[in-house]
């Protein structure tokens, strides 16, 4: 099976044929790869080097935390890649963005109202959790389409707070 892993601008071609060998950008490597203790922690021996990383799949790809560095990597197999190459520009900058609460907490203040225009980086909500006040900012320019919370509300983890359209 052939894959292309992309991170930043860089692309790496990886071919996985068996359990103990891979080909990376044309070069052959002996590997031994396994997850540890049923956790998303993986140990990789590759040509004798020992690496260990936390690998978590998210909506945007794989997050790999390795030696204190976080890498965001998207992996496509060949078929997916061809599909993507022909499908034109991505719509992520255009679709609606749902601001979800990153943790349970208390809404301290809401500094936007429905219909208001916001710019990338504008502060929208202050959420208190673990005795700290945290600013939640807009990830892009847009208009507040729906505002679902008000100051004083207790919110759950992942609860949608508002939508930027």
């Amino acid at each position, binding site marked *: 099976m052939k*894959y292309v*892993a992309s991170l*930043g601008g860089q692309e790496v071609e990886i071919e996985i044929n068996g359990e103990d060998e891979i080909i990376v950008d044309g070069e052959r490597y002996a590997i031994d790869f396994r997850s540890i203790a049923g*956790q998303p922690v993986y140990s990789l021996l590759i040509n004798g080097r020992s690496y260990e990383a936390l690998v978590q799949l998210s909506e945007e790809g*794989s997050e*790999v935390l390795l*030696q204190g560095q976080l890498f965001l*990597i998207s992996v496509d197999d060949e078929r997916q890649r061809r599909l993507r190459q022909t499908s034109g520009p991505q719509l992520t900058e255009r679709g609606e963005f749902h601001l979800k609460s990153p*943790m349970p907490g208390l809404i301290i203040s809401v500094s936007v109202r429905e219909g208001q225009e916001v710019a990338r980086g504008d502060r929208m909500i202050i959420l208190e959790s673990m005795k700290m006040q945290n600013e939640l900012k807009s990830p892009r320019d847009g208009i507040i389409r729906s505002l679902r919370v008000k100051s004083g509300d207790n919110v759950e983890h992942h609860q949608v707070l508002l939508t930027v359209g």
Partner: protein
Amino acid sequence: MFNKVLIANRGEIAVRIIRACRELGLIPVAVFSEADRESLHVRYAEEAYYLGPSPSRESYLRGDKIIQIAKTCGAGAIHPGYGFLAERDDFALQVEEAGLIFIGPRPSAITAMGDKAVARATVTAAGVPVVPGTEGEGNLTDEEIIAVAPQIGFPLLIKATAGGGGKGMREVQNIEELPNLISAARREAEAAFGDGNVYLEKLLLDVRHIEFQILADEHGNVIHLGERECSLQRRHQKLLEESPSPFLDEELRQRMGEVACKAAQAVDYLNAGTIEFLVDKDQKFYFLEMNTRLQVEHPVTEMVTGIDIVKEQIRIARGRKLRSSQEDIRLKGWAIECRINAEDPYNSFLPSTGIITQSILPTGPGIRVDTGIYAGFAISPFYDSLISKLICWGETRGEAILRMRRALEEYRILGVKTNIPFHQNIIASHRFMAGQFDTRFVEERFSMNNSEEGKEELAKIAAIMATLVEHRHHQKASQIFRKSERDTSNWKWLGRWERVNR
């Protein structure tokens, strides 16, 4: 004399104090909120009493209930730890009035140092230099503060008079943003300390935060245990501390230590406390405030002096004389502490909650961990995000750094995000290794993606690991699909059942 101690706190510091009690042969008593029933401090204590619902105001800040519990169970003393009730003079007074011993300073010293404005006036009178700021005693109105600000000059800091731990603090660049920031600081201070009073202080740039650990007994002896370097902060929260400070020489250490003892004596100080200073690049130093309690970062001092500060606190509270004089105190080697917080260093350090699914501690020579968590424990949103302290000792600063590096890499906490990667990046930065940093370093000159060495190689490894994981997921998914296609056992069973029941 008391032989049972109630610990009016939670988390790692409650565990720390319980251990000191056990090692002194005293009976430790825990109190706990709803969220903390299964926490280590309850598990490790000899007795444990329910305080109330999870929010601090209904549990760990309920001084009245805590005193009632102490009296009922026969605890002769209360150790407040840090935070919560530790710097509340009214609580200390109520403890005394209930006939119990407060393991800490006298209420009058907490009052004097607790109102930061009063503290500044007091130590100034004793000849200790202070950071320029609002003069006189607390309770300033917004209008008074706004009026005096231009005289101090910008940038400046709003600070909670009851403050500590960076809470209720705001930096102000100009007069326009002052009113809003005062409200924000008051709100946070009110929430954290139950007291919304604030004052102003000049924001000194290019300075270090260096503090001295003090011990004082009932017999008039006051000594210091050397300094702690605490300049690595984010939003005025300390993140990494060390002792000694790479910035101090023996001469300056001695001078500052003497001034620190003088500041403590100015309020007739008793028990353990800390004098915080700002030190500029010309080695001029300014009294910042006194913390009239045990500090989070006390272990680095313990590691280099060999003195168990919590045990000393208890001995002092029992009326004993200090066992060491100033001449006995020698700093041996070097100690560094990393505060491990449940927060995401890759997402604005947002707090992270959840159940710990795995915790593999770094161990071995020169390593100390103080923690209140374990695999299976839930990190709730009710309390602050400090979940563990990793402390490394080395013969030299270099050895301590190398040890911390390996320990951070070994440490595995899963289930919540932690700031371990932040510490790994700090420890690996050239400026940290060279000792060249100040209180603005983390916020202004540090980035999580600084280290370029071997980055490309690591990126490739990360790409390989991500690919191998996704490959396995695909394989597994297709196997499950194939399996369920073939899996007819239910239908067979059903067929039989139907035949039997026909």
